[in-house]
Every structure is written in structure tokens, then in C-alpha cells.
């Protein structure tokens, strides 16, 4: 027997990027606890549409926790209260009948709200464009073990590469800093032999880009690693710091 609950939603509504925006209250009735948070919003939107009102705009794509499109701040927590979970994988069984849920978009100077809960996260793309790549052609597949990679390095690189770029680290950071994102991207390439030749250039350029895009400064509050749906550790921020010092003090990189 499916359990259903009724909720009161306080949702951020904003017509467009220029609009000031405000909270609006709406009811979510007969919500199955087996639904995901986004499915709950779908049901609410169907009701709004039937009533001739504008549905709530929110970002989503794969709905299986791997694409990084979804994400809002639910009751003050990025991606909601569950640890290591994207919003699409947050299920309504974690809420109780009669709960009031506040839903807000990511808030940061670098992330502009486009409509309701949809934010422009292209600033994260800006950090990647500054150096989050390897600028040689990969060519055909090599024989295995041509480039020896120690298993622990491969594991750490994979841990960092789990970043889906959802922006929860920025949203949850008290300073709206993107250091966990940048740290993960710099780390996952710096740990592998293919990424080493450009490691200094990459660290230097990506940190500069991150600052220019209007993100805040990291003060080691550790909220990012606590909220990251992929549970990426701030060990990656420490590694980025080391890569940055190497680039700034011991390489030819300047300006």
C-alpha cells in the first residue's frame, strides 16, 4: 500500500533574471512517499498548469543522480537533507505528512537566477575552459600498461572525477566559493600521468579564472564536502593548493 503525504511548499518564484523574485506558498497533495523530490514538483506543476498558473521552473535531466543538472536548496540544505544524494535521488519518504518545505535556488554572485529555481552555472564552465582539459590528441587506444598508473593514484583521480558539476559546493559554502569544484577538476588531472605536463599551467589558469568569475574565497568551513552529492573530500582542495603553490613559486607560469 502506497503511503501518501500532504506538504506545504514555500517556493522561490522569479519571472526572469531581472525580476526581484519572492516566495510563494503552494500545496502538494497526495504525494506518494515513493516519489522523488522532482516527481513531487512534477505533480505540483501539473496542478498549477490545470489551474492556468505558471509551473515552477527547475533544472533536471537524467534523474538518476549522475548528470549534475538538478539541485535546489531544500530547507536550507543543498540537494536536501540526505547525505551524498542529488535532489532527483531524494525521496519523499524522508518527509513527514504536514511538513512545510522551503525551496530556493542556488545563491551566489557567480550564479544568476534565470527563472524560479533555474540558475545559470556557466561560471563553472568558465573554470573548466581556463584549463580543465588535456590539450593533446588522445590518438588510438594504447596497449594496456604503456603508461603505468599506480592503483591508489587511479582511485584518487576517480574520486575527484566523480564531480558532476552541480554547484552544490558553491551553494552550500558560506562564502559561495568554488574551491571544491576547482580542486576536484585540478586534482583528477594532476593525479594522472596524462595531466602532469600541463599541471602548473592548469592550476594557475583555473584559479585565476575562478577568482575573476566572482566566486568567494575558501575559509575551510567544510560545508562543501558535507553537502557534495558525490562526497568529494576537501583533500582535493589541499591538493589544488599544492598544485597552485608549485605553479606560482616553482614553475614558469606568470600573470
Amino acid at each position: 500500500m502506497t503511503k501518501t503525504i500532504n506538504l506545504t511548499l514555500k517556493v522561490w518564484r522569479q519571472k526572469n533574471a531581472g525580476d526581484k523574485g519572492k516566495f510563494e506558498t503552494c500545496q502538494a497533495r497526495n504525494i506518494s512517499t515513493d516519489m522523488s523530490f522532482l516527481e513531487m514538483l512534477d505533480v505540483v506543476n501539473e496542478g498549477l498548469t490545470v489551474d492556468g498558473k505558471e509551473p515552477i521552473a527547475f533544472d533536471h535531466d537524467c534523474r538518476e543522480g549522475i548528470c549534475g543538472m538538478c539541485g535546489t536548496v531544500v530547507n536550507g540544505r543543498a540537494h536536501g537533507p540526505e547525505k551524498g544524494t542529488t535532489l532527483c535521488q531524494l525521496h519523499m519518504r524522508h518527509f513527514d505528512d504536514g511538513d512545510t518545505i522551503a525551496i530556493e535556488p542556488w545563491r551566489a554572485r557567480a550564479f544568476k537566477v534565470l527563472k524560479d529555481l533555474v540558475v545559470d552555472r556557466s561560471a563553472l564552465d568558465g573554470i573548466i575552459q581556463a584549463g580543465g582539459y588535456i590539450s593533446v590528441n588522445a590518438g588510438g587506444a594504447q596497449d594496456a600498461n604503456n603508461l603505468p598508473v599506480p592503483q591508489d593514484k587511479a582511485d584518487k583521480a576517480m574520486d575527484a572525477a566523480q564531480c558532476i558539476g552541480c554547484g552544490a559546493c558553491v551553494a552550500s559554502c558560506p562564502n559561495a566559493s568554488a574551491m571544491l569544484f576547482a580542486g576536484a577538476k585540478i586534482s583528477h588531472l594532476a593525479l594522472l600521468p596524462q595531466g602532469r605536463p600541463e599541471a602548473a599551467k592548469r592550476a594557475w589558469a583555473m584559479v585565476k579564472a575562478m577568482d575573476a568569475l566572482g566566486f568567494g574565497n575558501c575559509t575551510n568551513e567544510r560545508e562543501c564536502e558535507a553537502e557534495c552529492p558525490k562526497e568529494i573530500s576537501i583533500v582535493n582542495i589541499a591538493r589544488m593548493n599544492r598544485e597552485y603553490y608549485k605553479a606560482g613559486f616553482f614553475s614558469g607560469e606568470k600573470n
Partner: protein
Amino acid sequence: MNWFTDTLGTSIGKKLMMALTGLAFCGFLATHLAGNLTLYVGSEAFLSYAEHLHSLGPLITLAEWSLLTLAIIHVATGLTLFYQNWRSRPVRYSVKKTAGGRTIGSRTMPYTGILLLLFIILHLLNFHFVDKTGTNIWNIVTDTFNSGGYIFIYIIAMIVAAVHVSHGLWSAFQTLGVDHPKYTPFIRGLSIVFSVIIGIGFGFIPIFISISV
């Protein structure tokens, strides 16, 4: 700009300056406390410590100017970061909860920092920029801690210092890139222990002096 100021000018560069100057202040706190422990022994031990310290002459002047330089870097960079971080989120959340990362120390860092700066100015006015003719530092200390107001201010200031250091010490290591599952738990523990030692070691001086003298 040259490569050096350019490296220090970014978000990570500013962090590095906070970490290095902050660690230097942790070292200063440790030596300052070691010296001040002579207060618990009595006037003779304390005066002999003060005399030995001042016999260092130019080294003391060098240390004072170094501390002042470090303080200017720490305060100026800290205030810049505080302002930039405040600006980085123009629209605040109406509901914001911690996910468990923040501590009392990390949450209050800029505020405890500003309070400490005000305290240090008062502290220098009390014991450094004071007329020492016809008296000695022991008498100045005991006179100061005759006042309930000063006892209160000094105890509160030491609690504030302990809170500031509890985040600052481990945070400095993280900033320097020293973070590894092997020893990070130890560094985090050390920060708490160090802050408690600072808080208790300094904080009980006014109480001890007011009771024993």
C-alpha cells in the same frame, strides 16, 4: 605585477598569507604563554623572566617589528577576504542550515579576529605602552587585575582567542596543502587541545593574580 605578488594576490594566495601569518601567531602564543607561566610561580620568577627577555635588546625590537608586520598582513588580508566573501552572495538564503562542516570557530572567524585586534590594542596599552618608571611589570600586572572589569575583559578575550585558534590552527595546515587521512585527524585534535591550553593557560592568569595577590 611580478610573479610573487601575482601568486599571493589570488584567493589561494591570500589564504596562504593568512595561514603563514596565523601559524606564526600560534608560535607566538605558545612562547608568550610559556613566559607568562612564570606569573603562576610568583613575582621573582616573573620579573627575572622579564629581565631576561629585555636583555635580548635588538632581538626584541626585531621581534616586535616582525609581529607588527605579520599583524598588518593578517588583519588586512583577513578584512579583504571578509569583504569579498560577504559580497560573493548578494541575495542570502531565507533558510540555511549547516550540513555539519562548520564549527563555532570557523563560523565566527572574522568576528573573533576583529575582537582580538581590539583586545591586543588594549593589552598593549595596559602592559607595553605604559610608564614603567618607579614601578615594575609585576606591579602593573597586579594593579590591572585588581579591577574586576579588566579580569572580565581578559577572560572573555582568552575565550575568544581559543575559539579563533581552534579553527585557525588546523585550517592553516589545510591551506598549506597538508591534508591526509593519516594525520589530519591528529592535526584537528591538536588544534582543539592547543586552543584549550591557550584559553586555560592565559585565562586563569587574571583569576590567579587577583586571588593570590
